């Protein structure tokens, strides 16, 4: 055998899933979707059919239900925005109802098989020329029948026979624990070529849904757990972060940070597709820099989008007015939008998806998130990192300039937790620091990193002026240790001597 048989993939249309599946489900094969109760198996099984119908080929789908009645499924899926009854009328969706019937008391007298079920499934597939079929959930059949060894044998037969129908099949199975056997009855995994695990894990008091492709027989997929969310009107959305490719181009076009002196410090402005992290303690002027960044963009006719997780609309408006920026007018002009939300209103995955959909609909040139630290409060370490990777690569991909803020814990010196996570993901880092000097608090800023460009290495003093915003002044001279918070004075002659050391 020296020729290769490529296994074709069927794009499922489930957002993000096709990415982690390297294209979709193996076509014409059977995939097992296993998960504990409440892990969104039925949603997955239904959505697989929905996307087939909504896809360009308008493929029909058959749902064989062993657990919930068709009426329940129709009603439950309606909340996700899927009008199953309409597709049934159009001959695109067909139920095979194998759910327990209240008025059926079944007695077993002798040996039986599932030929009737198989005949019904085949009939349904032929009737609407279905290309996709979901069986939800196979193991539920065990509760209908007393003789479990017969059920095992027959489910195996049904699973094997479905493969002959020329459809791509998806079977769900119940698991009893998040990290244990693949499925409760073991029979399911033997008929399936591929296994996907859905998890609903309690992680540090927060529920976190993840999806893992355990195996794709004979074809490739992304490995590991990927977070997902179930969104009304959309269904399952997989956040395929690590599957994102580092393929974004790098722009050399400079844009303004909103502050002339800051642009100069950055060697002529920020790059158009760069991500800037502004880190500082509370009150150092992070929101001010954000405001300047957005106002500067809007002045140049760029579309700007602000996600605010710390302050209300009214507070933001008032602050901006105090710095001479009219947010209200900017919104009226149509190039600016504020989205305010409490971080606690959803999981980080939910926020990620809503941020993405805002970006998709508003199509900004600039985006600011104030602050990341507020979002970090509602997440676990892993999901926060995944969120950042996802968001930064998503906006870079679309050549959107991003500015994120992070709150440092200590007033002078120090770094923020957020910063540790994100610093490698950003192109530029601006530090805002309090500097205690001669008994008074002053402010200093520095551009710590500016990827792909020369930048000012000085720590410069700045002040916040009413009606004008940030005024950047001269570098601090004769002091060292501002960043660490341990200030010490350096005599002028020592400074000269130090500089002399590095002269040619």
């Amino acid at each position: 055998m020296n020729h290769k048989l490529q296994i074709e993939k069927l794009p499922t249309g489930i957002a993000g899933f096709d990415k982690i599946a390297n294209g979709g489900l193996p076509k014409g094969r059977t995939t097992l979707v296993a998960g504990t109760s409440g892990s969104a198996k039925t949603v997955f099984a239904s959505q697989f059919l929905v996307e087939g119908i909504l896809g360009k080929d308008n493929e029909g789908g058959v749902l064989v239900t062993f657990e919930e009645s068709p009426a329940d499924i129709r009603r439950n899926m309606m909340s996700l925005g899927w009008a199953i009854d309409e597709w049934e009328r159009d001959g695109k969706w067909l139920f095979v109802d194998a759910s327990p019937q209240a008025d059926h008391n079944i007695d077993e007298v002798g040996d039986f098989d599932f030929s009737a079920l198989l005949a019904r499934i085949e009939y349904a597939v032929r009737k609407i020329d279905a290309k996709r079929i979901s069986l939800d959930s196979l193991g539920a059949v065990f509760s209908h029948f007393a003789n479990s060894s017969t059920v095992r044998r027959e489910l195996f037969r049904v699973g094997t026979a479905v493969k002959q129908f020329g459809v791509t099949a998806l079977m769900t199975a119940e698991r009893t624990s998040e990290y244990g056997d693949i499925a409760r009855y073991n029979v399911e995994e033997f008929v399936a070529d591929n296994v996907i695990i859905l998890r609903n894990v309690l992680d540090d008091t927060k529920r976190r849904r993840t999806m893992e492709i355990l195996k794709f027989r004979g074809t490739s997929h992304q490995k590991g757990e990927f977070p997902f969310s179930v969104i009304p009107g959309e269904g399952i959305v997989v956040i395929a972060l690590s599957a994102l490719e580092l393929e974004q181009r790098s722009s050399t076009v400079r844009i303004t940070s909103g502050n002339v002196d800051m642009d100069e410090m950055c060697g002529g402005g920020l790059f158009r597709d760069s991500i800037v992290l502004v880190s500082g303690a509370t009150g150092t002027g992070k929101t001010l820099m954000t405001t300047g960044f957005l106002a500067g963009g809007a002045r140049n006719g760029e579309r700007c989008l602000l996600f605010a997780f710390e302050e209300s609309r009214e507070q933001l408006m008032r602050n901006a007015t105090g710095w001479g920026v009219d947010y209200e007018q900017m919104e009226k002009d149509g190039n600016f939008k504020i989205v305010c939300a409490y971080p606690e209103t959803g999981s980080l995955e939910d926020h990620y998806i809503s941020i993405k959909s805002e970006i998709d609909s508003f199509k900004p040139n600039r985006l600011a998130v104030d602050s990341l630290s507020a979002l970090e409060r509602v997440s676990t370490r892993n999901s926060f990192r995944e969120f950042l990777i996802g968001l930064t690569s998503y906006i870079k991909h679309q050549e959107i300039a991003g500015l994120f803020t992070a709150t440092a814990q200590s007033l002078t010196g120090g770094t923020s937790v957020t910063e540790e996570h994100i610093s490698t993901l950003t192109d530029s880092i601006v530090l805002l620091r309090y500097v205690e000097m001669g008994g008074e608090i002053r402010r200093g800023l520095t551009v710590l990193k500016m990827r792909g460009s020369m930048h000012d290495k000085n720590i410069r003093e700045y002040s916040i002026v009413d009606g004008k915003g940030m005024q950047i002044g001269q570098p601090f001279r004769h002091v060292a240790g501002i960043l660490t918070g341990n200030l010490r004075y350096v005599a002028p002659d020592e400074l000269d001597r130090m500089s002399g050391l590095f002269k040619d």
Partner: protein
Amino acid sequence: MKQYLMKLFIAGDSSRSERAVKNLKQLCDKVMFDDYEIIIIDVLEQPNIAEEEKIIATPTLLKLNPYPQRRIIGDLSDSDKLLGILGVK
């Protein structure tokens, strides 16, 4: 109208189906004499009826008359058990 009305769902000419038909007829002849009617439905030929009646297993015997209706699956090889379920004295 006969006293007993039953529907038997079978799958083609499998040995299990043939056994069920034979077992049922033998028993009915013995205890119901001529007072019964059996409608035999082959699910391979009429899957739509299997769908309407939500039949999963074959063979499946539906006792429609007299009440109460019963649903019995299997090749009906245990005639004593079957008699008990059908409620025949």
